[in-house]
């Protein structure tokens, strides 16, 4: 492969890629911690990370949790992420998706679990 072909490929990639970076780490605003309380309307206990949909007054948030193995080890089994349960998540809002946040900890069924 010639140098110019390689450069062209890289350039193409750098133009195309920013379109939809998703679920990233740097894409969450860690300067502003937010706390949300609401009702779990959906829950997934899956790799690479679990998620819940949390219905708060005026907005339904997607809260990104942790890998199932970690949640299980920290004492948050899948049976605790009950649809209809009240939950509080503390974490950081996504800079890209106004409805998404990354939870650092979650309080559900009266217990707080650290996720990081």
């Amino acid at each position: 492969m010639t140098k110019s072909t390689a450069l062209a490929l890289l350039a193409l990639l750098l133009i195309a890629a920013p379109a939809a970076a998703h679920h990233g780490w740097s894409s969450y605003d860690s300067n502003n911690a937010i706390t949300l309380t609401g009702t779990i309307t959906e829950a997934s206990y899956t790799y690479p990370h679990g998620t819940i949909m949390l219905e708060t007054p005026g907005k339904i948030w997607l809260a990104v949790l942790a890998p199932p193995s970690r949640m299980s080890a920290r004492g948050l089994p899948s049976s605790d992420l009950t649809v209809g349960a009240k939950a509080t998540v503390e974490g950081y809002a996504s800079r890209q998706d106004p409805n998404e946040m990354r939870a650092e900890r979650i309080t559900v069924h009266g217990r707080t679990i650290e996720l990081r």
Partner: protein
Amino acid sequence: MRPGSALLDALQASSFGAAMRDSIWLYPVVETVHIIGFSILVGAVIMFDLRVLGVSKRVPVRMLAHHLLPWSAAALLLIVPAGFLMFSADATSLISNRAFLIKMVLLLLAATNAATFHMGAIREVEQWDQGTTAPASARLHAAASLLIWLGVITCGRMIAYV
């Protein structure tokens, strides 16, 4: 809708994609297999590249290549299926993950670089097999390989953090 998204949806909806997401132990096990595989492959590649760049010139290049190539090929049998399984767990968001995309382009470059090395510079290896400096074109391939593979590992690790 982006092209190929139906294929990605199908992959993610597949039984193995679902198993990767739902099983408590499968994902970490597959991830570990992927890491064991690429530590063998990239380790072998870097040792070979360093030799071509002039480190340990008394080691014959051909003998080293014959020793390392089968291990590299075997490692690919661990790496590629494990990587594919991890991809299937989260295909639709990985396809727009910048680190993942750069990693794929780097892999393409690494493969092209290796192929051109095997078709070109290595052909006359008997002239620089032992005790001499490899020709500039061979050293250029080795240096490129070294940098590309370090980039592959960096991007692979960054997939979880960008």
